[in-house]
């Protein structure tokens, strides 16, 4: 199966690719990843299909000489008798307007907020890093600084918030080391828009 491709064993990646050795040219801005919006589309299609299918069935049944289903008679009567300022009509209208606005928002926004676009310095590959992966990598960086006991990281689209707890060494030294380590960590993530660092360091309270 793997014959046409030669090696399948462990692959040596220590050799850098020939072109990335030179200073990479200023790559174009990486675009956000856009969700295909499969789930909202499937749900909308399902609702339209159900409603149109049911109505079509009933209309055809009535044409064929059977009597209309109960729900259609009730619906026609309610639509023809309830005034517009009826609470249920207003409620339904408000729900429809909000749902419509929501669908428009879904259609216009990219979605996939958990995927952070990476710098486009590898030609031919468009890559995105999961937010969670970035958080884990930064947490590991923070934990490796001596004096840091624990760290919690939340990476947003613009800011990486790090809350660390120190348990020995001078607080200012730990802060400086942490800042350097995290700056290096953020740089190594290779993101197109490296998040700004917001660091909060607290001293562990003695028992």
């Amino acid at each position: 199966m793997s014959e046409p491709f030669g090696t399948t064993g462990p692959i040596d990646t220590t050799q850098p690719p020939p072109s990335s050795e030179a200073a990479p040219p200023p790559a174009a801005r990486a675009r956000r990843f856009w969700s295909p919006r499969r789930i909202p589309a499937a749900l909308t299609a399902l609702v339209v299909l159900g409603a149109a299918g049911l109505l079509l069935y009933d209309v055809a049944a009535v044409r064929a000489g059977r009597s209309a289903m109960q729900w259609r008679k009730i619906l026609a009567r309610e639509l023809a008798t309830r005034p517009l300022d009826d609470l249920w009509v207003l409620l339904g209208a408000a729900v429809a307007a909000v749902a419509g606005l929501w669908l428009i928002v879904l259609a216009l926004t990219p979605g996939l907020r958990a995927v952070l676009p990476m710098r486009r310095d590898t030609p031919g590959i468009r890559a995105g890093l999961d937010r969670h992966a970035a958080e884990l990598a930064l947490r590991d960086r923070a934990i490796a600084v001596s004096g840091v006991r624990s760290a919690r990281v939340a990476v947003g689209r613009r800011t990486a918030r790090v809350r660390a707890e120190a348990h020995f060494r001078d607080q200012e030294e730990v802060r400086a080391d942490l800042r350097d380590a995290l700056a290096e960590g953020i740089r190594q993530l290779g993101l197109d828009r490296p998040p700004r660092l917001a660091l909060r360091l607290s001293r562990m309270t003695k028992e």
Partner: protein
Amino acid sequence: MLGRFNRILLALTGLVLLAVGLAVLIGGLDLQRRWGFTMPDQWPFDGPKDVLFSDSARIRYRSEQWWWPAVITALGVLVVGSLWWLLAQLRGRRLRQVSVDSGDGSEAVLRGRALEGILAAETEALDGVEGARVSLNGERDTPRARLVLALAPHADPGGVLAGLRSVVLENARASAGLAALPAEARLRAVSHRASRVA
């Protein structure tokens, strides 16, 4: 492609819902009179005591020859269209075959699954990658790869991408005789506990 199509249809559906909802709210809350603006003559509601869909509107065209065929056709189009839209979401546009340039003019094809399997195996062999899922889409002579990688704790994302390009994708591209094999990669992490041991 599917994404753009979905977004257009979602926006249209949303506009219809929003327009209907707002129209009923304007009528029901009597906003025209309260806020002092007027709507065009074709405006369907005459005020808060009007109804959504009166009996006379419902049976207005009933005696016309074309009415029932038109209703049934419209509903039928809606049913078929929405069914097709729904199925388009379920169907993965995965490539079954990739055409291989054998160099002697005769055409050869490679099963898409086979190429996907090889790409996944080679990606998993990269340093710092614990797992990989690969799918191919696009056309058979211009395939595109989609990869989801699970990164190990010590992985360096930039290095992984470089390896992906220079080894994995380049091998596959060269072996299949393709002009290019563009790829989209999503890098995830395997969750792990914090540990100070390097």
